């Protein structure tokens, strides 16, 4: 069994591919330095991330894969699932070795897995677009917090930039503690140093930093949400299926 040790970055993974071809030895497992080693193994190789090597691999993939498959691969990385790197490694290995494009060969377990996870990440992105709720603050910024399952915040920026071009907005990933702020000109990545100071336990902004009309619109929205339900058709299971409970904390209408 061959083990590669790398720094768990995307560039690191691509470097692993490069070095594997260079050394003609392919890993069965990808670990980071912190992971404990298994009891038995044949070979242990440490890979040092090299931007030149990784970009060469990426350029090779650009020739071999369609735009759709490339973005699917990138989306898989954003899933941050524990064993996604070895699946991606095997997938890239197969892509490079194959004479024809294999991206549509869903009979292959790795290709299917990559497309499935890519779809899941895409779904999560969709859910963020659906369930983001802006709250207007006293200084006119529309603020939305959310806890996505995967690290997909960067994927929704384009949509928000197109749609809310004439308002300042701030989206924040409470789980990973970073966010993006749009100041009418460009989008910047930001981090709150003192997340606890915002006092954000309930999911709603503190009333003293809310815009004066914000409370009213939240109330109107909640009232609308209640009024538009047809009591004779109540179906809590379907409700939860469509709008998973993990989003409820930041949904105004579920407060």
């Amino acid at each position, binding site marked *: 069994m061959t083990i590669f040790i790398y720094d768990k970055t995307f560039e690191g993974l691509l470097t692993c591919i490069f070095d594997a071809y260079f050394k003609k030895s392919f890993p069965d497992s990808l670990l980071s330095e912190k992971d404990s080693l298994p009891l038995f193994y044949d070979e242990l190789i440490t890979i040092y991330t090299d931007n030149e090597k990784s970009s060469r691999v990426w350029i090779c993939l650009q020739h071999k894969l369609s735009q759709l498959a490339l973005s699917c691969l990138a989306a898989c990385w954003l899933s941050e699932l524990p064993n996604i790197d070895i699946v991606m490694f095997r997938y890239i290995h197969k892509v490079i070795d194959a004479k024809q494009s294999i991206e549509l060969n*869903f009979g292959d377990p790795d290709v299917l897995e990559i497309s499935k996870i890519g779809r899941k990440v895409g779904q999560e992105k969709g859910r963020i677009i659906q369930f983001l709720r802006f709250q207007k603050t006293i200084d006119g910024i529309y603020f939305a917090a959310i806890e996505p399952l995967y690290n997909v915040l960067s994927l929704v920026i384009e949509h928000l930039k197109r749609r809310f071009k004439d308002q300042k907005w701030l989206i924040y990933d409470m789980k990973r503690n970073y966010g993006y702020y749009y100041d009418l000109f460009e989008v910047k990545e930001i981090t709150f140093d003192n997340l606890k100071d915002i006092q954000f336990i309930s999911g709603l902004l503190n009333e003293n930093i809310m815009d004066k009309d914000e409370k009213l619109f939240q109330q109107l929205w909640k009232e609308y949400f209640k009024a538009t339900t047809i009591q004779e058709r109540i179906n809590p299971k379907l409700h939860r299926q469509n709008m998973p409970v993990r989003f409820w904390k930041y949904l105004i*209408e579920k407060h």
Partner: protein
Amino acid sequence: MNTNVLNKLKILAESAKYDVSCASSGVSRSYKKGGIGDTSGWGICHSFTEDGRCISLLKIMLTNNCIYDCAYCINRRSNDLPRATFSVNELVNLTIEFYRRNYIEGLFLSSGVVRNPDYTMERLVKVIKDLRSIHRFNGYIHMKSIPGASQELVKEAGFYADRLSVNIEIPNEKSLQQLAPEKDFKSILEPMQYIQQGVLQSAEERKKYRYAPRFAPAGQSTQMIIGATTDTDKDILQLSSAFYQKPTMKRVYYSGYIPVNEYDKRLPMLKQPPLIRENRLYQADWLLRFYSFKVDEIVNDTFPDLDLEIDPKLSWALRHPEYFPIDINRADYEMLLRVPGIGIKSAKLIIVSRRHGNLGTYQLKKIGIIMKKAQYFITCRELPPKTIHEMSPNFIKNLFISKPKSNPRNLQLNIPFDSAE
């Protein structure tokens, strides 16, 4: 904006909620400088009510006053319920503020008929005209066209709205006459005709002039109430199928009748809305639109109603064992779509994957085919032991009829707690 608006919102949302349509798809409009928002092209559901329906648009009535007295409608004039009317400003403001907070994709505007159809239609048009031209709102707008409104007003509405709709409600004219004496098919079909003319005319003009205005770019939709009359599924689906033949009709919605006016003797007494029948009709509707089924294949004189216990595709397959089993690795796309347990997504996956090699049952399962159903209708590399011919259709049908679950509450002993003597 104050508590007055809150009350109005409550009343008018409750009056509008029985409209099923909530789609916000079919048109993309990019952001324009000085305007608000954009439309993305695919529908986005921003919330879901507790009955599981999507909230994509702010579905609201301009007023719930109505001069008509339709038996199935909650807003009929003989009903004693709180009435309210939004001012144009209030409604426009509400839409924009909701939109800015990412609550909604746009507005679904409907109204009761006040004074006469033209007067009502004029006021509806005023709202969406204000939204589009004064506030330069680029979000989605769906507007109900009032039955009996004049062609000029429908024409004007089409240039501001993304989708127009007229609800037919009852699938045959005789029942409609009975339940809504003030309406007839002519007053409903005419506006539909106007919308279609508008769309086709605008498409023609846009061929010549690139910037000619678009007319209702997301087409039109309509809605039918299920279970309020004695019409069979055959009547309903044949009408839908006829609608889908028209170039601009995008969707027909089905709404299980909810007894809102229980006192009216013209309507049936229902214990609960016919939800299963509604679901089966939607399934049949999908077969018509995406699975290239013909309406006679789903319902015909021998089978005028859909089977409530199994879905329409399975029930078609069981009636036609002569088409099966089909070979997964050879059959064409249209035939794959007809196999119960294979949907559009998995059919497409099969088509692209089998170029690389034969597919076996294990792979089919992984791809997402429901083998529990599909196994009786297909063959693949490994031959499945049992197909529909070995098993008989009736036997397979029984496999899929869900047996009533025993309710744990029924098993409990019923002990009367009398007061101690």
